[in-house]
Structure formats: structure tokens, C-alpha cells
């Protein structure tokens, strides 16, 4: 059985989820520029480097409540 082929139905949606999260987070970071703490550079690094967790951490803790 083709080992990789078996996992394609997982890998594609997971990759899409991750990319979507990252893109949405980066767009938000760049467009708003006001954060509860940290700078734009910091949050972009967090969103990109910490694949799945980074964007979530940004939206829960970094996003300015007013926006």
C-alpha cells in the first residue's frame, strides 16, 4: 500500500488549515497595527514560526480588543 498516498486526505486539509490560519493572522497583524502587547514584527514571527499555535495565540492574546 502506498504509505504517502494514504495520508493525502489528511495532509491537504491540515496544510490548508494551517496556511489559512497563518494568512488570516498575518493580514490582521499588518492591517491593525495595534496590539495588546508586542510589535508587528514580533507577531508576524510568532504567526509564521509557530505554525498552528502562533496565529491562535495572536488572536486570543495579541489582538487589540477595540478592532
Amino acid at each position, binding site marked *: 500500500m502506498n504509505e504517502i498516498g494514504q495520508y493525502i486526505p489528511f495532509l491537504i486539509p491540515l496544510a490548508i*488549515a494551517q496556511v489559512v490560519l497563518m494568512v*488570516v493572522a498575518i493580514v490582521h497583524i499588518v492591517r491593525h497595527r495595534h496590539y495588546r502587547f508586542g510589535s508587528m514584527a514580533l507577531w508576524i514571527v510568532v504567526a509564521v514560526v509557530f505554525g*498552528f499555535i502562533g496565529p*491562535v495565540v495572536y488572536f*486570543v492574546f495579541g489582538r487589540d*480588543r477595540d478592532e
Partner: protein
Amino acid sequence: MRGYAAFLGKELIEAVRTYKLFLMLVIFGVFGMSSPLLAKLTPQMIASVVSPELAATIPAPSAVDAWTQFYKNVGQLGLVILIIMFSGVLANELSKGTLVNVVTKGLSRGAVILAKLTSMVAIWTGSLVLAAGLTWVYTQYLFGSNALPHLVVSVVLLWVFGVFLLSLLVCAATLGSNNWVALLITVAVVAVGLVAGIIPAAYHYNPLSLASQNMALITGTVTLGDLWPAIGITLGLIVVLVAAAIGIFRRRVL
């Protein structure tokens, strides 16, 4: 009723525009997908990280392992994320004073609490259904079967426990104006439940069983009959907590 519907609409707009709904669905979707995958890959991971000999001794993964992963992810980390995500449910409004306006316009405080709870429960329900659905689909795909007893019931129990946590969170949130207060009280209550778990027979009555005995229910080491007291207590506590939240919130200075 009118105020409740209007405020529920506002809560749902808020969930969408503050990315809460989006994040919950993505996170729970990923949990749902990755649970069967993790179960399937566990032998390979042990083989490469520890030793192929050890991997050979563990039995081939099955649907049971997929659902075990599901309850580990969703039933533990998922609940933590749920609580953190909504920890500011009242604190954000109280610290900013956004409720003053709508309450002086005649919105009842009970409606505020109920609308917030409804919106949180709706998001929790959607996220849980998505996660469980994806786990079911991918388990079917990887292991060819989901033929396990009490699969739906065990998910429903986890759902009830989530609703209990959200009621607890709202009730705790009416006591302080800082989201850490709500979070701390909720965590403290869960910790008490965990400590109570040391007593072997306590699981019959412990609300935490609804999130911890799911696999035992599926594998048959615990019967639904064993959990009825815990289910009853949890449902009763939900009613008490919601009533208390409304009662406390009515007396609160906004």
C-alpha cells in the same frame, strides 16, 4: 425575549468578527482530523523515536485508538482552549462599559447572560460536531470501521460537560471584572473535581467523569448506568450556575 434575540444577534456578529468562531472551527477541525492520524502513526513514531522492537510489541492501532486520541485532544486541550477563548465573555464588556448603554435602553440583565451563554454553547456545539464528524470520517477511512458502542452518547456527555464549564465560566465572570478572575475560578473548580477523582467511587457523581470516562464507556469498563448520577448532578449544576449568574449579575454595578 426581544432583547435576548437582539443581543444574541450581537453576540454572533461578535463571534464572527473577532475571529472566535473561525478559530474554534479551525482548531477543532484540526483536532478532529489529526486524532485518527495520530493513532495510525503512533507505531511508526515509536519505531523511529524509541525502537522498532518496542513498536512491534504494541498491537496494531484501531478505531478505539483513534477515539482515544480524540478524547485526549478535544476532551482536554479542546476544553482548555474553549475556556480561554471565552474567558473575557463579560470582563471585556464590564471593563469597557459597553453594557451600560444597552442596559439603560431596557435590555434585561438576564437576557445578557442567557444570550452570551447561548452563543457560546452554539459555537461549542458546532466545533464539537465538526471535530467528532471529522474523526468519524477519517477513522472510517483509515481503519475501515467505527463500530464502537456508545460512540454518540460519549460525545454527548463531553458536550454536556462543555456546557457545564461555560455555565461555570459565566457565573465566575459575574463575580469579577477581570477575565483572569473568571478563568481562575473555573480552573479552581475543575481542580477540585480532579482531586475528588482520587476517591475511586467518586466518579459516579463527579461531573468531570463526563469528560474523562468517555473511553471507559466505549470500551465497556463503565456503563451508562454508572454515570447517571454524575449526569444528573452536572445538569442540576448547570441550572444552578446559570440562575446564580443571572442573580449575581442583576445586583452588579455595571
